[in-house]
Protein backbone atom coordinates (compact mmCIF):
# COMPACT_ATOMS: atom_id res chain seq x y z
CA UNK A 1 0.00 0.00 0.00
CA UNK A 2 1.23 3.42 -0.91
CA UNK A 3 -0.22 6.71 0.31
CA UNK A 4 0.58 10.13 -1.01
CA UNK A 5 -0.97 13.25 0.46
CA UNK A 6 -1.90 15.59 -2.35
CA UNK A 7 -3.38 18.48 -0.41
CA UNK A 8 -3.80 19.16 3.26
CA UNK A 9 -4.88 22.02 5.50
CA UNK A 10 -6.49 22.10 8.94
CA UNK A 11 -9.83 20.76 7.73
CA UNK A 12 -9.32 19.25 4.28
CA UNK A 13 -7.20 16.41 3.05
CA UNK A 14 -6.81 14.76 -0.34
CA UNK A 15 -4.67 11.72 -0.70
CA UNK A 16 -3.80 9.04 -3.16
CA UNK A 17 -4.05 5.39 -2.10
CA UNK A 18 -2.40 2.75 -4.22
CA UNK A 19 -2.32 -1.00 -3.93
CA UNK A 20 -5.55 -1.62 -1.99
CA UNK A 21 -8.84 -2.91 -3.30
CA UNK A 22 -12.15 -1.12 -3.37
CA UNK A 23 -13.49 -3.03 -0.37
CA UNK A 24 -10.72 -1.70 1.79
CA UNK A 25 -11.12 1.99 0.90
CA UNK A 26 -14.87 1.67 1.19
CA UNK A 27 -14.49 0.17 4.66
CA UNK A 28 -12.31 3.12 5.60
CA UNK A 29 -14.87 5.57 4.25
CA UNK A 30 -17.69 3.94 6.16
CA UNK A 31 -15.69 3.82 9.38
CA UNK A 32 -14.93 7.53 9.14
CA UNK A 33 -18.57 8.35 8.60
CA UNK A 34 -20.18 6.05 11.11
CA UNK A 35 -17.65 4.93 13.71
CA UNK A 36 -15.08 7.62 14.43
CA UNK A 37 -16.40 9.35 17.55
CA UNK A 38 -16.58 13.08 18.14
CA UNK A 39 -18.19 15.45 20.63
CA UNK A 40 -21.66 16.91 20.27
CA UNK A 41 -24.26 18.34 22.61
CA UNK A 42 -26.61 15.52 23.47
CA UNK A 43 -28.83 16.76 26.25
CA UNK A 44 -30.09 20.25 27.05
CA UNK A 45 -31.74 21.50 30.20
CA UNK A 46 -33.61 24.70 29.41
CA UNK A 47 -33.89 26.90 32.47
CA UNK A 48 -35.45 29.90 30.84
CA UNK A 49 -36.51 30.48 27.29
CA UNK A 50 -38.61 33.49 26.38
CA UNK A 51 -37.35 33.60 22.79
CA UNK A 52 -39.68 33.17 19.83
CA UNK A 53 -38.66 29.58 19.17
CA UNK A 54 -39.33 26.38 21.11
CA UNK A 55 -36.90 24.63 23.45
CA UNK A 56 -36.49 21.62 21.16
CA UNK A 57 -35.65 23.82 18.20
CA UNK A 58 -32.85 25.45 20.16
CA UNK A 59 -31.68 22.09 21.52
CA UNK A 60 -31.49 20.74 17.98
CA UNK A 61 -29.43 23.73 16.82
CA UNK A 62 -27.08 23.30 19.77
CA UNK A 63 -26.64 19.62 18.94
CA UNK A 64 -25.53 20.40 15.41
CA UNK A 65 -22.79 22.81 16.45
CA UNK A 66 -19.50 20.97 15.89
CA UNK A 67 -17.33 20.94 19.01
CA UNK A 68 -13.55 20.59 19.13
CA UNK A 69 -12.93 17.10 20.37
CA UNK A 70 -10.20 15.61 22.51
CA UNK A 71 -10.43 11.88 21.98
CA UNK A 72 -7.64 11.04 24.40
CA UNK A 73 -9.25 12.63 27.41
CA UNK A 74 -12.83 11.46 27.08
CA UNK A 75 -14.57 8.09 26.97
CA UNK A 76 -17.60 7.04 25.06
CA UNK A 77 -20.51 6.97 27.56
CA UNK A 78 -21.11 3.24 26.99
CA UNK A 79 -17.44 2.43 27.60
CA UNK A 80 -16.92 4.74 30.57
CA UNK A 81 -16.16 3.04 33.91
CA UNK A 82 -18.73 5.28 35.65
CA UNK A 83 -21.59 3.27 34.08
CA UNK A 84 -23.97 6.07 34.91
CA UNK A 85 -26.69 7.39 32.70
CA UNK A 86 -25.90 10.94 33.63
CA UNK A 87 -22.17 10.63 33.07
CA UNK A 88 -19.05 11.72 34.90
CA UNK A 89 -16.37 14.22 33.97
CA UNK A 90 -14.61 11.60 31.88
CA UNK A 91 -17.51 11.19 29.52
CA UNK A 92 -19.44 14.45 29.67
CA UNK A 93 -18.76 18.15 29.24
CA UNK A 94 -21.15 20.79 30.51
CA UNK A 95 -21.69 23.96 28.55
CA UNK A 96 -23.82 26.81 29.84
CA UNK A 97 -25.50 29.69 28.14
CA UNK A 98 -26.95 32.68 29.89
CA UNK A 99 -28.01 35.34 27.44
CA UNK A 100 -30.34 38.27 27.59
CA UNK A 101 -31.06 41.05 25.15
CA UNK A 102 -30.81 44.17 27.27
CA UNK A 103 -30.59 46.81 24.57
CA UNK A 104 -32.69 45.89 21.59
CA UNK A 105 -32.51 42.93 19.24
CA UNK A 106 -29.34 40.90 19.16
CA UNK A 107 -28.02 37.57 17.97
CA UNK A 108 -26.74 34.98 20.40
CA UNK A 109 -23.60 33.30 19.05
CA UNK A 110 -21.93 30.00 19.85
CA UNK A 111 -19.06 31.99 21.39
CA UNK A 112 -21.34 32.76 24.34
CA UNK A 113 -21.50 29.09 25.32
CA UNK A 114 -19.28 28.67 28.36
CA UNK A 115 -17.64 25.29 28.56
CA UNK A 116 -16.29 23.72 31.74
CA UNK A 117 -13.35 22.49 29.67
CA UNK A 118 -11.81 25.29 27.59
CA UNK A 119 -10.63 22.70 25.05
CA UNK A 120 -14.11 21.46 24.23
CA UNK A 121 -15.65 24.52 22.61
CA UNK A 122 -17.56 25.19 19.38
CA UNK A 123 -15.25 25.15 16.36
CA UNK A 124 -16.40 28.64 15.41
CA UNK A 125 -17.44 31.49 17.66
CA UNK A 126 -19.83 33.12 15.24
CA UNK A 127 -22.49 30.48 14.73
CA UNK A 128 -25.86 32.13 15.38
CA UNK A 129 -27.86 30.15 17.94
CA UNK A 130 -30.87 32.41 18.34
CA UNK A 131 -32.05 35.97 17.95
CA UNK A 132 -33.59 37.77 20.90
CA UNK A 133 -35.44 41.07 21.16
CA UNK A 134 -35.27 43.39 24.11
CA UNK A 135 -36.25 41.68 27.33
CA UNK A 136 -36.10 38.11 26.02
CA UNK A 137 -33.91 35.63 27.81
CA UNK A 138 -32.27 32.32 27.07
CA UNK A 139 -30.70 30.34 29.86
CA UNK A 140 -29.71 26.73 29.53
CA UNK A 141 -27.29 24.00 30.41
CA UNK A 142 -26.08 21.61 27.72
CA UNK A 143 -24.29 18.30 28.11
CA UNK A 144 -21.89 17.22 25.38
CA UNK A 145 -20.86 13.62 24.97
CA UNK A 146 -18.85 11.54 22.57
CA UNK A 147 -20.90 9.60 20.08
CA UNK A 148 -20.81 7.92 16.72
CA UNK A 149 -22.15 8.96 13.35
CA UNK A 150 -24.22 5.79 13.04
CA UNK A 151 -26.46 7.00 15.85
CA UNK A 152 -26.86 10.62 14.78
CA UNK A 153 -25.23 12.66 12.02
CA UNK A 154 -24.20 15.32 14.53
CA UNK A 155 -21.50 12.90 15.69
CA UNK A 156 -20.02 12.57 12.22
CA UNK A 157 -16.53 14.11 12.20
CA UNK A 158 -16.57 14.52 8.41
CA UNK A 159 -18.79 16.51 6.08
CA UNK A 160 -17.19 15.11 2.97
CA UNK A 161 -15.70 11.67 2.82
CA UNK A 162 -15.47 10.11 -0.61
CA UNK A 163 -13.09 8.38 -2.96
CA UNK A 164 -12.89 7.98 -6.70
CA UNK A 165 -10.92 5.78 -9.03
CA UNK A 166 -7.66 7.14 -10.31
CA UNK A 167 -8.36 8.07 -13.97
CA UNK A 168 -6.36 6.85 -16.93
CA UNK A 169 -6.85 8.71 -20.20
CA UNK A 170 -5.47 7.38 -23.44
CA UNK A 171 -5.47 9.37 -26.65
CA UNK A 172 -4.79 7.15 -29.65
CA UNK A 173 -2.62 9.46 -31.69
CA UNK A 174 -2.94 7.69 -34.99
CA UNK A 175 -6.75 7.94 -34.98
CA UNK A 176 -7.02 11.41 -33.44
CA UNK A 177 -7.21 14.34 -35.84
CA UNK A 178 -7.05 16.94 -33.05
CA UNK A 179 -10.50 18.32 -33.82
CA UNK A 180 -10.84 19.49 -30.20
CA UNK A 181 -14.40 18.24 -29.61
CA UNK A 182 -13.32 16.38 -26.48
CA UNK A 183 -11.59 19.50 -25.13
CA UNK A 184 -14.74 21.54 -25.58
CA UNK A 185 -17.11 19.13 -23.86
CA UNK A 186 -15.05 18.20 -20.81
CA UNK A 187 -16.82 19.75 -17.77
CA UNK A 188 -13.67 19.66 -15.63
CA UNK A 189 -11.26 21.09 -18.22
CA UNK A 190 -9.08 18.01 -17.98
CA UNK A 191 -7.98 18.19 -21.61
CA UNK A 192 -6.28 21.03 -23.38
CA UNK A 193 -5.15 21.76 -26.90
CA UNK A 194 -1.57 22.92 -26.96
CA UNK A 195 0.17 23.59 -30.27
CA UNK A 196 -2.71 21.99 -32.13
CA UNK A 197 -2.40 18.77 -30.20
CA UNK A 198 -4.86 17.43 -27.63
CA UNK A 199 -3.22 16.66 -24.31
CA UNK A 200 -4.16 15.78 -20.77
CA UNK A 201 -3.75 18.90 -18.64
CA UNK A 202 -5.14 17.98 -15.22
CA UNK A 203 -5.61 14.24 -14.87
CA UNK A 204 -6.75 14.29 -11.22
CA UNK A 205 -9.76 16.47 -12.00
CA UNK A 206 -11.32 13.89 -14.30
CA UNK A 207 -14.60 12.48 -12.99
CA UNK A 208 -14.71 9.53 -15.44
CA UNK A 209 -17.94 10.90 -16.92
CA UNK A 210 -17.04 9.61 -20.43
CA UNK A 211 -18.44 12.74 -22.11
CA UNK A 212 -15.25 13.15 -24.13
CA UNK A 213 -15.49 9.60 -25.43
CA UNK A 214 -19.04 10.15 -26.58
CA UNK A 215 -18.19 13.47 -28.18
CA UNK A 216 -15.38 12.05 -30.25
CA UNK A 217 -16.53 11.85 -33.90
CA UNK A 218 -14.19 8.92 -34.67
CA UNK A 219 -15.45 5.37 -34.60
CA UNK A 220 -14.06 3.75 -32.51
CA UNK A 221 -13.34 6.86 -30.39
CA UNK A 222 -9.77 8.08 -30.46
CA UNK A 223 -9.90 8.82 -26.74
CA UNK A 224 -10.41 6.28 -24.01
CA UNK A 225 -11.10 7.01 -20.37
CA UNK A 226 -10.44 4.13 -17.99
CA UNK A 227 -9.29 3.87 -14.44
CA UNK A 228 -6.29 2.35 -12.73
CA UNK A 229 -6.94 -0.81 -10.85
CA UNK A 230 -6.51 -0.52 -7.06
CA UNK A 231 -5.69 3.16 -7.10
CA UNK A 232 -7.93 5.75 -5.50
CA UNK A 233 -8.14 9.44 -4.75
CA UNK A 234 -9.61 9.96 -1.31
CA UNK A 235 -11.20 13.27 -0.38
CA UNK A 236 -11.84 14.22 3.22
CA UNK A 237 -13.33 17.32 4.79
CA UNK A 238 -13.53 17.53 8.55
CA UNK A 239 -16.28 19.49 10.32
CA UNK A 240 -13.51 20.93 12.49
CA UNK A 241 -14.08 18.52 15.38
CA UNK A 242 -10.92 16.54 14.65
CA UNK A 243 -7.96 17.16 12.35
CA UNK A 244 -8.36 15.11 9.14
CA UNK A 245 -5.26 12.97 9.68
CA UNK A 246 -6.55 12.03 13.12
CA UNK A 247 -9.83 10.88 11.58
CA UNK A 248 -7.96 8.52 9.25
CA UNK A 249 -5.83 7.19 12.11
CA UNK A 250 -8.88 6.60 14.30
CA UNK A 251 -10.67 4.78 11.48
CA UNK A 252 -7.70 2.45 11.08
CA UNK A 253 -7.57 1.85 14.81
CA UNK A 254 -11.26 0.97 14.85
CA UNK A 255 -10.83 -1.38 11.89
CA UNK A 256 -8.01 -3.12 13.75
CA UNK A 257 -10.18 -3.49 16.82
CA UNK A 258 -13.06 -4.91 14.82
CA UNK A 259 -10.84 -7.45 13.06
CA UNK A 260 -9.40 -8.56 16.40
CA UNK A 261 -12.93 -8.96 17.67
CA UNK A 262 -13.81 -11.27 14.75
CA UNK A 263 -10.66 -13.28 15.35
CA UNK A 264 -11.61 -13.71 18.99
CA UNK A 265 -15.17 -14.73 18.19
CA UNK A 266 -14.38 -17.40 15.57
CA UNK A 267 -11.67 -19.05 17.54
Amino acid at each position, binding site marked *: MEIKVLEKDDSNMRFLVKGVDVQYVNTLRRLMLAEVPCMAIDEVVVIENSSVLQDEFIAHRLGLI*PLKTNLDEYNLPEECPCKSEFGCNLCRVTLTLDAEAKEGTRTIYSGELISENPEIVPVKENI*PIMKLTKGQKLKLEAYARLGRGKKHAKWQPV*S*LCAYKYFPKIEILEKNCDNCGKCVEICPRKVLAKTDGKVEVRDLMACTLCQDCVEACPKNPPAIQVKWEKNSFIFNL*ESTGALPPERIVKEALKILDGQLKEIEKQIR
Partner: protein
Amino acid sequence: MIIPVRCFTCGKLIADKWEEFSRRVKAGEDAGEVLDSLGIKRYCCRRMLLSHVEIIDEVLRFYEEAEKRREARGYY
Protein backbone atom coordinates in the same frame (compact mmCIF):
# COMPACT_ATOMS: atom_id res chain seq x y z
CA MET B 1 -36.77 30.56 10.28
CA ILE B 2 -33.15 31.14 11.23
CA ILE B 3 -30.14 29.97 9.21
CA PRO B 4 -29.63 26.19 9.70
CA VAL B 5 -26.40 25.31 11.48
CA ARG B 6 -25.32 22.73 8.92
CA CYS B 7 -25.99 21.81 5.33
CA PHE B 8 -28.97 19.43 5.17
CA THR B 9 -27.22 17.14 2.72
CA CYS B 10 -23.56 16.88 3.62
CA GLY B 11 -23.37 18.33 7.13
CA LYS B 12 -20.91 21.14 6.48
CA LEU B 13 -21.07 24.02 8.93
CA ILE B 14 -22.66 26.97 7.11
CA ALA B 15 -24.37 29.10 9.78
CA ASP B 16 -21.16 30.98 10.57
CA LYS B 17 -20.93 32.18 6.97
CA TRP B 18 -24.49 33.47 6.64
CA GLU B 19 -24.01 36.96 8.02
CA GLU B 20 -21.03 37.72 5.84
CA PHE B 21 -22.80 36.23 2.84
CA SER B 22 -25.99 38.22 3.29
CA ARG B 23 -24.11 41.44 4.01
CA ARG B 24 -21.92 41.16 0.94
CA VAL B 25 -24.77 40.17 -1.36
CA LYS B 26 -26.84 43.09 -0.09
CA ALA B 27 -23.89 45.35 -0.82
CA GLY B 28 -24.16 44.31 -4.45
CA GLU B 29 -21.59 41.54 -4.85
CA ASP B 30 -22.29 38.55 -7.04
CA ALA B 31 -23.67 35.73 -4.88
CA GLY B 32 -21.69 33.02 -6.69
CA GLU B 33 -18.44 34.85 -6.19
CA VAL B 34 -19.16 35.43 -2.50
CA LEU B 35 -19.82 31.71 -2.07
CA ASP B 36 -16.56 30.89 -3.82
CA SER B 37 -14.60 33.23 -1.59
CA LEU B 38 -16.23 31.74 1.52
CA GLY B 39 -14.98 28.32 0.44
CA ILE B 40 -18.39 26.77 -0.15
CA LYS B 41 -17.80 24.42 -3.04
CA ARG B 42 -20.59 21.86 -3.23
CA TYR B 43 -23.98 22.83 -4.59
CA CYS B 44 -25.79 21.29 -1.62
CA CYS B 45 -24.14 23.84 0.68
CA ARG B 46 -24.44 26.68 -1.82
CA ARG B 47 -28.19 26.31 -2.04
CA MET B 48 -28.44 26.46 1.76
CA LEU B 49 -27.23 30.08 1.73
CA LEU B 50 -28.63 31.06 -1.66
CA SER B 51 -32.20 30.02 -0.89
CA HIS B 52 -32.35 31.03 2.75
CA VAL B 53 -34.84 33.63 3.99
CA GLU B 54 -34.29 34.84 7.54
CA ILE B 55 -37.96 34.81 8.59
CA ILE B 56 -37.09 35.27 12.26
CA ASP B 57 -36.38 38.93 11.50
CA GLU B 58 -40.01 39.37 10.39
CA VAL B 59 -41.29 37.61 13.52
CA LEU B 60 -39.10 39.68 15.81
CA ARG B 61 -40.54 42.91 14.37
CA PHE B 62 -43.83 42.21 16.16
CA TYR B 63 -42.01 41.94 19.47
CA GLU B 64 -40.02 45.08 18.77
CA GLU B 65 -43.23 47.01 18.01
CA ALA B 66 -44.88 45.72 21.16
CA GLU B 67 -41.85 46.80 23.15
CA LYS B 68 -41.93 50.27 21.60
CA ARG B 69 -45.58 50.67 22.58
CA ARG B 70 -44.90 49.58 26.09
CA GLU B 71 -42.15 52.17 26.35
CA ALA B 72 -44.34 54.89 24.85
CA ARG B 73 -47.06 54.20 27.42
CA GLY B 74 -44.52 54.46 30.19
CA TYR B 75 -43.46 57.90 29.03
CA TYR B 76 -46.91 59.53 29.01
